[in-house]
Protein backbone atom coordinates (compact mmCIF):
# COMPACT_ATOMS: atom_id res chain seq x y z
CA UNK A 1 0.00 0.00 0.00
CA UNK A 2 1.17 3.47 -0.73
CA UNK A 3 0.88 6.46 1.52
CA UNK A 4 -0.41 9.92 0.71
CA UNK A 5 2.02 12.77 0.22
CA UNK A 6 1.14 16.36 0.84
CA UNK A 7 3.10 19.49 0.11
CA UNK A 8 2.22 22.64 2.04
CA UNK A 9 3.55 26.01 0.92
CA UNK A 10 6.77 24.51 -0.40
CA UNK A 11 9.24 27.13 -1.62
CA UNK A 12 12.72 26.41 -2.90
CA UNK A 13 15.68 28.45 -3.97
CA UNK A 14 19.22 28.18 -5.22
CA UNK A 15 21.22 30.89 -3.50
CA UNK A 16 19.07 33.98 -4.09
CA UNK A 17 17.20 32.64 -7.07
CA UNK A 18 13.69 31.52 -6.24
CA UNK A 19 12.73 28.31 -8.06
CA UNK A 20 9.45 27.46 -6.37
CA UNK A 21 6.85 29.69 -4.69
CA UNK A 22 4.52 28.34 -2.03
CA UNK A 23 3.30 25.22 -3.75
CA UNK A 24 0.57 23.32 -1.98
CA UNK A 25 -0.45 20.01 -3.48
CA UNK A 26 -2.07 16.82 -2.27
CA UNK A 27 -0.86 13.61 -3.88
CA UNK A 28 -3.44 10.92 -3.10
CA UNK A 29 -2.77 7.30 -2.19
CA UNK A 30 -2.38 4.81 -5.02
CA UNK A 31 -2.96 7.36 -7.70
CA UNK A 32 -0.70 8.83 -10.30
CA UNK A 33 -0.21 12.56 -9.93
CA UNK A 34 1.36 14.21 -12.96
CA UNK A 35 3.15 17.53 -12.79
CA UNK A 36 3.30 19.31 -16.10
CA UNK A 37 4.76 22.60 -17.24
CA UNK A 38 7.35 24.11 -19.56
CA UNK A 39 11.08 23.60 -18.90
CA UNK A 40 12.39 25.63 -15.99
CA UNK A 41 9.03 25.91 -14.23
CA UNK A 42 10.35 24.23 -11.09
CA UNK A 43 8.59 20.89 -11.51
CA UNK A 44 11.75 18.81 -11.01
CA UNK A 45 12.80 20.91 -8.04
CA UNK A 46 9.38 20.32 -6.54
CA UNK A 47 9.64 16.56 -6.46
CA UNK A 48 13.24 16.82 -5.31
CA UNK A 49 11.89 18.64 -2.26
CA UNK A 50 9.56 15.71 -1.61
CA UNK A 51 12.39 13.26 -0.88
CA UNK A 52 14.75 15.91 0.47
CA UNK A 53 17.18 15.53 -2.40
CA UNK A 54 16.98 19.22 -3.24
CA UNK A 55 18.82 20.21 -0.07
CA UNK A 56 21.89 18.11 -0.96
CA UNK A 57 22.88 20.47 -3.78
CA UNK A 58 25.19 23.34 -2.83
CA UNK A 59 23.31 26.58 -2.27
CA UNK A 60 19.92 24.91 -2.22
CA UNK A 61 17.38 25.79 0.44
CA UNK A 62 13.68 25.14 0.92
CA UNK A 63 10.85 26.11 3.21
CA UNK A 64 7.36 24.82 3.82
CA UNK A 65 6.17 21.38 4.83
CA UNK A 66 6.01 17.99 3.20
CA UNK A 67 3.81 15.43 4.94
CA UNK A 68 4.11 11.73 4.33
CA UNK A 69 1.01 10.04 5.73
CA UNK A 70 0.63 13.03 8.03
CA UNK A 71 4.22 13.12 9.31
CA UNK A 72 6.56 15.91 8.25
CA UNK A 73 9.48 14.48 6.29
CA UNK A 74 11.61 17.44 7.35
CA UNK A 75 11.39 16.13 10.92
CA UNK A 76 12.61 12.72 9.84
CA UNK A 77 16.10 11.41 9.11
CA UNK A 78 16.70 12.19 5.42
CA UNK A 79 18.02 8.72 4.68
CA UNK A 80 14.78 7.24 6.05
CA UNK A 81 12.70 9.65 3.98
CA UNK A 82 14.49 8.64 0.82
CA UNK A 83 14.06 5.03 1.71
CA UNK A 84 10.28 5.45 1.83
CA UNK A 85 10.05 7.92 -1.03
CA UNK A 86 11.91 6.44 -3.99
CA UNK A 87 13.00 8.40 -7.03
CA UNK A 88 13.50 7.60 -10.70
CA UNK A 89 15.61 10.09 -12.67
CA UNK A 90 15.23 11.50 -16.15
CA UNK A 91 18.28 9.64 -17.38
CA UNK A 92 18.80 6.01 -16.40
CA UNK A 93 21.53 6.03 -13.77
CA UNK A 94 22.35 2.48 -12.72
CA UNK A 95 25.66 2.14 -10.88
CA UNK A 96 28.01 1.49 -13.80
CA UNK A 97 30.58 -0.26 -11.63
CA UNK A 98 28.10 -2.90 -10.45
CA UNK A 99 26.41 -5.91 -11.98
CA UNK A 100 22.67 -5.99 -12.67
CA UNK A 101 22.09 -7.99 -9.52
CA UNK A 102 24.27 -5.76 -7.35
CA UNK A 103 22.39 -2.73 -8.63
CA UNK A 104 19.10 -4.11 -7.41
CA UNK A 105 20.67 -5.32 -4.18
CA UNK A 106 22.51 -2.05 -3.51
CA UNK A 107 19.71 -0.39 -1.58
CA UNK A 108 18.95 -3.53 0.40
CA UNK A 109 22.58 -3.90 1.37
CA UNK A 110 22.73 -0.25 2.40
CA UNK A 111 19.89 -0.83 4.79
CA UNK A 112 21.57 -3.80 6.33
CA UNK A 113 20.31 -6.92 4.52
CA UNK A 114 23.19 -9.39 4.23
CA UNK A 115 21.44 -12.76 3.86
CA UNK A 116 22.17 -14.00 0.32
CA UNK A 117 19.01 -16.00 -0.14
CA UNK A 118 16.86 -13.11 0.99
CA UNK A 119 18.78 -10.70 -1.20
CA UNK A 120 18.25 -12.93 -4.22
CA UNK A 121 14.57 -13.31 -3.41
CA UNK A 122 13.97 -9.58 -2.99
CA UNK A 123 15.95 -8.77 -6.10
CA UNK A 124 13.92 -11.20 -8.16
CA UNK A 125 10.72 -9.80 -6.82
CA UNK A 126 11.78 -6.24 -7.58
CA UNK A 127 12.91 -7.15 -11.08
CA UNK A 128 9.57 -8.86 -11.71
CA UNK A 129 7.65 -5.83 -10.53
CA UNK A 130 9.74 -3.67 -12.84
CA UNK A 131 8.89 -6.07 -15.71
CA UNK A 132 12.55 -6.78 -16.29
CA UNK A 133 13.05 -10.23 -14.77
CA UNK A 134 12.43 -12.27 -17.89
CA UNK A 135 14.89 -10.20 -19.89
CA UNK A 136 17.78 -10.36 -17.43
CA UNK A 137 17.35 -13.49 -15.33
CA UNK A 138 20.11 -15.31 -17.23
CA UNK A 139 22.65 -12.49 -17.04
CA UNK A 140 22.33 -10.98 -13.60
CA UNK A 141 26.10 -10.92 -13.21
CA UNK A 142 26.66 -8.68 -16.24
CA UNK A 143 27.42 -5.01 -15.88
CA UNK A 144 24.36 -2.81 -16.09
CA UNK A 145 25.82 -1.13 -19.18
CA UNK A 146 25.08 -4.34 -21.10
CA UNK A 147 21.39 -3.36 -21.05
CA UNK A 148 19.54 -1.07 -23.43
CA UNK A 149 18.56 2.38 -22.16
CA UNK A 150 14.96 1.33 -21.65
CA UNK A 151 16.07 -1.75 -19.73
CA UNK A 152 18.44 0.38 -17.67
CA UNK A 153 15.57 2.62 -16.67
CA UNK A 154 13.53 -0.40 -15.60
CA UNK A 155 16.60 -1.59 -13.69
CA UNK A 156 16.58 1.72 -11.85
CA UNK A 157 12.90 1.20 -11.10
CA UNK A 158 13.66 -2.27 -9.78
CA UNK A 159 16.48 -0.87 -7.68
CA UNK A 160 14.11 1.69 -6.20
CA UNK A 161 11.31 -0.83 -5.60
CA UNK A 162 13.62 -3.34 -3.89
CA UNK A 163 13.78 -1.30 -0.70
CA UNK A 164 9.97 -1.27 -0.52
CA UNK A 165 9.11 2.39 -0.71
CA UNK A 166 5.58 3.73 -0.31
CA UNK A 167 5.88 6.59 -2.80
CA UNK A 168 7.66 6.57 -6.16
CA UNK A 169 8.74 9.90 -7.64
CA UNK A 170 9.54 9.93 -11.32
CA UNK A 171 11.40 12.81 -12.91
CA UNK A 172 10.60 12.63 -16.63
CA UNK A 173 11.35 8.91 -16.55
CA UNK A 174 10.86 8.40 -20.27
CA UNK A 175 12.45 11.56 -21.62
CA UNK A 176 15.59 9.84 -22.83
CA UNK A 177 13.89 6.70 -24.10
CA UNK A 178 12.57 5.60 -27.48
CA UNK A 179 8.77 5.40 -28.01
CA UNK A 180 8.60 1.65 -27.46
CA UNK A 181 10.50 1.79 -24.15
CA UNK A 182 8.31 4.72 -23.18
CA UNK A 183 5.24 2.61 -23.73
CA UNK A 184 6.68 -0.15 -21.56
CA UNK A 185 7.38 2.36 -18.77
CA UNK A 186 3.88 3.80 -19.01
CA UNK A 187 2.30 0.36 -18.78
CA UNK A 188 4.52 -0.27 -15.79
CA UNK A 189 3.26 2.89 -14.10
CA UNK A 190 -0.34 1.68 -14.54
CA UNK A 191 0.69 -1.54 -12.85
CA UNK A 192 2.69 0.09 -10.05
CA UNK A 193 0.02 2.48 -8.86
CA UNK A 194 -1.84 -0.39 -7.28
CA UNK A 195 0.90 -0.65 -4.72
CA UNK A 196 2.49 2.76 -4.64
CA UNK A 197 1.63 6.41 -4.69
CA UNK A 198 3.20 7.81 -7.82
CA UNK A 199 4.22 11.36 -8.68
CA UNK A 200 5.48 11.84 -12.21
CA UNK A 201 7.02 14.94 -13.71
CA UNK A 202 6.63 15.19 -17.44
CA UNK A 203 6.78 17.73 -20.21
CA UNK A 204 4.87 15.37 -22.41
CA UNK A 205 1.18 16.30 -22.22
CA UNK A 206 -0.06 13.13 -23.89
CA UNK A 207 1.89 11.11 -21.37
CA UNK A 208 0.25 12.94 -18.50
CA UNK A 209 -3.14 12.43 -20.09
CA UNK A 210 -2.45 8.72 -20.56
CA UNK A 211 -1.11 7.79 -17.14
CA UNK A 212 -2.23 10.36 -14.59
CA UNK A 213 -5.32 10.41 -12.39
CA UNK A 214 -4.54 13.88 -11.17
CA UNK A 215 -2.54 16.64 -12.84
CA UNK A 216 -0.99 19.87 -11.64
CA UNK A 217 0.22 22.63 -13.95
CA UNK A 218 3.34 24.59 -12.94
CA UNK A 219 4.54 27.85 -14.46
CA UNK A 220 7.47 30.02 -13.39
CA UNK A 221 7.80 28.36 -10.00
CA UNK A 222 4.13 28.55 -9.14
CA UNK A 223 1.38 26.01 -9.26
CA UNK A 224 -1.28 27.51 -11.48
CA UNK A 225 -3.90 24.84 -11.39
CA UNK A 226 -4.58 21.31 -10.21
CA UNK A 227 -7.38 18.87 -10.63
CA UNK A 228 -8.33 15.52 -12.08
CA UNK A 229 -6.54 14.94 -15.32
CA UNK A 230 -9.75 14.96 -17.29
CA UNK A 231 -10.88 18.23 -15.76
CA UNK A 232 -7.55 19.94 -16.22
CA UNK A 233 -7.31 18.96 -19.86
CA UNK A 234 -10.93 19.51 -20.85
CA UNK A 235 -12.14 22.36 -18.68
CA UNK A 236 -9.12 24.31 -17.43
CA UNK A 237 -10.05 27.18 -15.11
CA UNK A 238 -7.02 29.34 -15.73
CA UNK A 239 -6.28 30.89 -19.11
CA UNK A 240 -2.56 30.02 -18.87
CA UNK A 241 -3.44 26.38 -18.26
CA UNK A 242 -5.78 26.42 -21.22
CA UNK A 243 -3.08 27.96 -23.41
CA UNK A 244 -0.54 25.38 -22.31
CA UNK A 245 -2.70 22.27 -22.66
CA UNK A 246 -3.95 23.37 -26.05
CA UNK A 247 -0.37 23.84 -27.20
CA UNK A 248 -0.37 27.60 -27.58
CA UNK A 249 2.93 27.80 -25.76
CA UNK A 250 5.53 25.60 -24.06
Amino acid at each position, binding site marked *: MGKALEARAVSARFHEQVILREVTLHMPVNQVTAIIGPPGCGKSTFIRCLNRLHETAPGATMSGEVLLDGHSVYDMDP*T*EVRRSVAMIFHRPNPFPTMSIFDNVAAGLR*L*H*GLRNRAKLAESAEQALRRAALWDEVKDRLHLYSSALSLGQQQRLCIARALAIEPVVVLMDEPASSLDPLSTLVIEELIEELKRQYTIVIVTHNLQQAARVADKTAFFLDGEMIEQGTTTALFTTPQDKRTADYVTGRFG
Partner: protein
Amino acid sequence: MVTRVSYKTVRKLKNALFVSVLSAMTSLAVLPLLSLLWSIGFHGIAALVSLSGAPLSRGVASAVLVNALAQSLVTTASSAVIAVSLGVAAAIYSSQYAGLRVGRVIRFTVDILSGAPSILAGMVLFALLSGVSSLTAGVLALVLCMLPVVVRTADQVLVAVPVAYIEGSLALGASRIQTIFATVLPIAHKSLITALLFVTARMAGEAAPLLIILDGGTASKGGRWFQPLPLRLYSDLTHGGSFPHQIAYVEALILLVTIVTIYGLARWIGRPDRW
Protein backbone atom coordinates in the same frame (compact mmCIF):
# COMPACT_ATOMS: atom_id res chain seq x y z
CA MET B 1 13.20 -5.20 14.17
CA VAL B 2 15.71 -4.75 16.96
CA THR B 3 18.62 -5.51 14.64
CA ARG B 4 17.38 -2.97 12.10
CA VAL B 5 17.31 -0.17 14.62
CA SER B 6 20.82 -0.97 15.76
CA TYR B 7 22.03 -1.16 12.19
CA LYS B 8 20.60 2.29 11.58
CA THR B 9 22.61 3.52 14.54
CA VAL B 10 25.75 1.91 13.18
CA ARG B 11 25.23 3.68 9.88
CA LYS B 12 24.70 6.99 11.58
CA LEU B 13 27.80 6.53 13.70
CA LYS B 14 29.80 5.57 10.65
CA ASN B 15 28.66 8.71 8.90
CA ALA B 16 29.44 10.86 11.93
CA LEU B 17 32.90 9.31 12.14
CA PHE B 18 33.37 9.97 8.43
CA VAL B 19 32.45 13.61 8.80
CA SER B 20 34.66 14.14 11.83
CA VAL B 21 37.67 12.41 10.29
CA LEU B 22 37.27 14.54 7.18
CA SER B 23 37.03 17.72 9.22
CA ALA B 24 40.05 16.77 11.29
CA MET B 25 42.10 16.02 8.18
CA THR B 26 41.05 19.27 6.59
CA SER B 27 42.19 21.23 9.62
CA LEU B 28 45.43 19.29 9.49
CA ALA B 29 45.83 20.36 5.87
CA VAL B 30 45.47 24.02 6.75
CA LEU B 31 47.64 23.85 9.87
CA PRO B 32 51.04 24.05 8.12
CA LEU B 33 49.95 27.10 6.15
CA LEU B 34 48.81 28.87 9.29
CA SER B 35 52.06 27.96 11.01
CA LEU B 36 54.03 29.25 8.03
CA LEU B 37 52.08 32.47 7.70
CA TRP B 38 52.22 33.05 11.42
CA SER B 39 55.94 32.45 11.83
CA ILE B 40 56.95 34.50 8.81
CA GLY B 41 54.41 37.23 9.42
CA PHE B 42 55.14 37.53 13.13
CA HIS B 43 58.92 37.25 13.04
CA GLY B 44 59.15 39.21 9.81
CA ILE B 45 57.27 42.18 11.17
CA ALA B 46 59.08 41.96 14.51
CA ALA B 47 62.43 41.93 12.70
CA LEU B 48 61.36 44.80 10.50
CA VAL B 49 60.53 46.84 13.58
CA SER B 50 63.75 46.05 15.42
CA LEU B 51 65.90 46.61 12.35
CA SER B 52 64.42 50.00 11.73
CA GLY B 53 65.42 50.88 15.28
CA ALA B 54 69.12 50.20 14.68
CA PRO B 55 70.45 53.07 12.60
CA LEU B 56 73.84 51.61 11.77
CA SER B 57 72.77 48.29 10.37
CA ARG B 58 69.68 49.79 8.82
CA GLY B 59 71.53 51.50 6.01
CA VAL B 60 73.45 48.40 4.93
CA ALA B 61 70.58 46.01 5.33
CA SER B 62 68.11 48.14 3.46
CA ALA B 63 70.58 48.85 0.65
CA VAL B 64 71.10 45.11 0.17
CA LEU B 65 67.40 44.47 0.36
CA VAL B 66 66.45 47.19 -2.08
CA ASN B 67 69.11 45.95 -4.46
CA ALA B 68 67.82 42.39 -4.24
CA LEU B 69 64.25 43.51 -4.73
CA ALA B 70 65.15 45.62 -7.74
CA GLN B 71 67.03 42.73 -9.30
CA SER B 72 64.08 40.45 -8.68
CA LEU B 73 61.79 42.90 -10.37
CA VAL B 74 64.06 43.23 -13.40
CA THR B 75 64.70 39.50 -13.83
CA THR B 76 61.10 38.48 -13.30
CA ALA B 77 59.66 41.18 -15.52
CA SER B 78 62.07 40.67 -18.38
CA SER B 79 61.86 36.88 -18.29
CA ALA B 80 58.07 37.12 -18.12
CA VAL B 81 57.96 39.42 -21.16
CA ILE B 82 60.17 37.12 -23.21
CA ALA B 83 58.55 33.88 -22.13
CA VAL B 84 55.01 35.19 -22.49
CA SER B 85 55.48 36.64 -25.97
CA LEU B 86 57.24 33.55 -27.26
CA GLY B 87 55.01 31.16 -25.40
CA VAL B 88 51.68 32.71 -26.29
CA ALA B 89 52.72 32.88 -29.94
CA ALA B 90 53.55 29.19 -29.84
CA ALA B 91 50.25 28.48 -28.10
CA ILE B 92 48.30 30.38 -30.76
CA TYR B 93 49.98 28.18 -33.33
CA SER B 94 49.25 24.95 -31.48
CA SER B 95 45.65 25.88 -30.76
CA GLN B 96 44.63 27.62 -34.01
CA TYR B 97 46.89 26.39 -36.79
CA ALA B 98 48.38 23.03 -35.91
CA GLY B 99 46.62 19.93 -37.16
CA LEU B 100 45.67 17.13 -34.87
CA ARG B 101 48.99 15.32 -35.09
CA VAL B 102 51.30 18.34 -34.93
CA GLY B 103 49.25 19.73 -32.06
CA ARG B 104 49.62 16.47 -30.22
CA VAL B 105 53.39 16.49 -30.68
CA ILE B 106 53.65 20.08 -29.43
CA ARG B 107 51.45 19.39 -26.42
CA PHE B 108 53.31 16.24 -25.54
CA THR B 109 56.71 17.96 -25.67
CA VAL B 110 55.52 20.94 -23.71
CA ASP B 111 53.81 18.73 -21.13
CA ILE B 112 56.99 16.75 -20.53
CA LEU B 113 59.15 19.86 -20.30
CA SER B 114 56.82 21.68 -17.96
CA GLY B 115 57.07 18.80 -15.52
CA ALA B 116 60.86 19.03 -15.31
CA PRO B 117 62.40 20.35 -12.08
CA SER B 118 63.29 24.03 -12.31
CA ILE B 119 66.83 23.54 -11.07
CA LEU B 120 67.69 21.79 -14.34
CA ALA B 121 67.16 25.02 -16.28
CA GLY B 122 69.90 26.63 -14.22
CA MET B 123 72.22 23.69 -14.85
CA VAL B 124 71.63 23.82 -18.59
CA LEU B 125 72.41 27.50 -18.87
CA PHE B 126 75.37 27.18 -16.54
CA ALA B 127 76.83 24.63 -18.94
CA LEU B 128 75.88 26.53 -22.10
CA LEU B 129 77.36 29.80 -20.90
CA SER B 130 80.32 27.94 -19.38
CA GLY B 131 79.94 29.53 -16.01
CA VAL B 132 79.51 33.15 -16.99
CA SER B 133 77.36 34.76 -14.38
CA SER B 134 75.17 37.72 -15.15
CA LEU B 135 71.63 38.81 -14.71
CA THR B 136 71.07 38.03 -18.38
CA ALA B 137 72.00 34.42 -17.72
CA GLY B 138 69.56 34.40 -14.83
CA VAL B 139 66.82 35.81 -17.03
CA LEU B 140 67.50 33.18 -19.68
CA ALA B 141 67.31 30.43 -17.07
CA LEU B 142 63.93 31.72 -15.89
CA VAL B 143 62.70 31.94 -19.49
CA LEU B 144 63.75 28.35 -20.10
CA CYS B 145 61.86 27.34 -16.99
CA MET B 146 58.76 29.33 -17.79
CA LEU B 147 58.37 28.72 -21.52
CA PRO B 148 56.83 25.24 -21.50
CA VAL B 149 54.47 26.18 -18.69
CA VAL B 150 53.35 29.32 -20.53
CA VAL B 151 52.73 27.40 -23.75
CA ARG B 152 50.80 24.69 -21.97
CA THR B 153 48.51 26.95 -19.99
CA ALA B 154 47.97 29.41 -22.86
CA ASP B 155 47.21 26.55 -25.22
CA GLN B 156 44.65 25.19 -22.77
CA VAL B 157 42.96 28.55 -22.43
CA LEU B 158 42.86 29.10 -26.19
CA VAL B 159 41.62 25.61 -26.96
CA ALA B 160 38.75 26.22 -24.55
CA VAL B 161 37.37 28.96 -26.82
CA PRO B 162 34.25 27.40 -28.36
CA VAL B 163 34.74 26.34 -31.97
CA ALA B 164 31.33 27.80 -32.80
CA TYR B 165 32.68 31.36 -32.38
CA ILE B 166 35.69 30.65 -34.56
CA GLU B 167 33.55 29.06 -37.25
CA GLY B 168 31.11 31.93 -36.98
CA SER B 169 33.91 34.40 -37.60
CA LEU B 170 35.35 32.43 -40.50
CA ALA B 171 31.88 32.03 -41.99
CA LEU B 172 31.56 35.82 -42.09
CA GLY B 173 34.60 35.88 -44.34
CA ALA B 174 37.17 36.89 -41.73
CA SER B 175 40.69 35.69 -42.28
CA ARG B 176 42.54 33.52 -39.77
CA ILE B 177 44.41 36.52 -38.36
CA GLN B 178 41.24 38.57 -38.03
CA THR B 179 39.56 35.65 -36.31
CA ILE B 180 42.41 35.29 -33.85
CA PHE B 181 42.64 38.97 -32.97
CA ALA B 182 38.96 39.86 -33.14
CA THR B 183 37.37 36.69 -31.79
CA VAL B 184 39.69 34.23 -30.08
CA LEU B 185 41.88 36.57 -28.04
CA PRO B 186 39.06 38.88 -26.88
CA ILE B 187 37.11 35.88 -25.63
CA ALA B 188 40.12 34.32 -23.94
CA HIS B 189 41.98 37.40 -22.72
CA LYS B 190 40.79 37.34 -19.13
CA SER B 191 41.61 33.73 -18.41
CA LEU B 192 44.79 34.11 -20.41
CA ILE B 193 46.01 37.03 -18.29
CA THR B 194 45.03 35.20 -15.11
CA ALA B 195 46.86 32.05 -16.12
CA LEU B 196 49.96 33.98 -17.14
CA LEU B 197 49.98 35.94 -13.89
CA PHE B 198 49.87 32.66 -11.99
CA VAL B 199 52.90 31.46 -13.88
CA THR B 200 54.68 34.76 -13.25
CA ALA B 201 53.87 34.63 -9.54
CA ARG B 202 55.46 31.22 -9.39
CA MET B 203 58.53 32.33 -11.28
CA ALA B 204 58.98 35.43 -9.12
CA GLY B 205 59.77 33.18 -6.19
CA GLU B 206 61.99 30.68 -8.00
CA ALA B 207 65.46 30.42 -6.56
CA ALA B 208 66.54 27.09 -8.01
CA PRO B 209 67.21 28.06 -11.65
CA LEU B 210 69.11 31.16 -10.54
CA LEU B 211 71.04 29.35 -7.87
CA ILE B 212 73.63 27.57 -9.96
CA ILE B 213 74.14 30.39 -12.43
CA LEU B 214 74.32 33.32 -10.08
CA ASP B 215 75.64 31.69 -6.96
CA GLY B 216 78.05 29.30 -8.64
CA GLY B 217 79.15 31.67 -11.38
CA THR B 218 82.38 33.61 -11.36
CA ALA B 219 80.85 36.95 -10.50
CA SER B 220 79.65 35.83 -7.11
CA LYS B 221 83.21 35.43 -5.91
CA GLY B 222 83.69 39.17 -5.86
CA GLY B 223 80.58 40.04 -3.99
CA ARG B 224 76.99 39.03 -3.55
CA TRP B 225 75.48 41.54 -5.86
CA PHE B 226 73.85 39.43 -8.55
CA GLN B 227 71.24 38.20 -6.19
CA PRO B 228 67.55 38.56 -6.82
CA LEU B 229 65.52 38.26 -3.65
CA PRO B 230 64.75 34.51 -3.61
CA LEU B 231 68.39 33.70 -4.16
CA ARG B 232 69.52 36.25 -1.64
CA LEU B 233 67.21 34.60 0.88
CA TYR B 234 68.54 31.16 0.07
CA SER B 235 72.13 32.17 0.54
CA ASP B 236 71.26 33.96 3.77
CA LEU B 237 69.87 30.63 4.95
CA THR B 238 72.85 28.54 3.87
CA HIS B 239 75.91 30.73 4.22
CA GLY B 240 77.29 31.78 7.55
CA GLY B 241 76.94 29.65 10.64
CA SER B 242 75.20 32.20 12.82
CA PHE B 243 73.40 34.31 10.27
CA PRO B 244 70.85 36.68 11.65
CA HIS B 245 67.47 34.99 11.30
CA GLN B 246 65.88 38.38 11.37
CA ILE B 247 67.07 39.30 7.87
CA ALA B 248 65.82 35.98 6.50
CA TYR B 249 62.41 36.53 8.04
CA VAL B 250 62.19 40.04 6.61
CA GLU B 251 63.17 38.81 3.15
CA ALA B 252 60.74 35.91 3.33
CA LEU B 253 57.99 38.28 4.37
CA ILE B 254 58.67 40.65 1.47
CA LEU B 255 58.79 37.76 -1.01
CA LEU B 256 55.60 36.27 0.36
CA VAL B 257 53.72 39.55 0.27
CA THR B 258 54.87 40.26 -3.29
CA ILE B 259 53.84 36.87 -4.59
CA VAL B 260 50.55 36.70 -2.79
CA THR B 261 49.81 40.16 -4.21
CA ILE B 262 50.46 38.99 -7.77
CA TYR B 263 48.35 35.94 -7.03
CA GLY B 264 45.56 38.09 -5.64
CA LEU B 265 45.71 40.29 -8.72
CA ALA B 266 45.46 37.21 -10.92
CA ARG B 267 42.43 35.97 -9.02
CA TRP B 268 40.83 39.39 -9.15
CA ILE B 269 41.24 39.63 -12.91
CA GLY B 270 40.01 36.09 -13.38
CA ARG B 271 37.05 36.48 -11.03
CA PRO B 272 33.84 35.03 -12.38
CA ASP B 273 31.64 37.50 -14.21
CA ARG B 274 28.43 38.54 -12.56
CA TRP B 275 25.53 39.11 -14.84
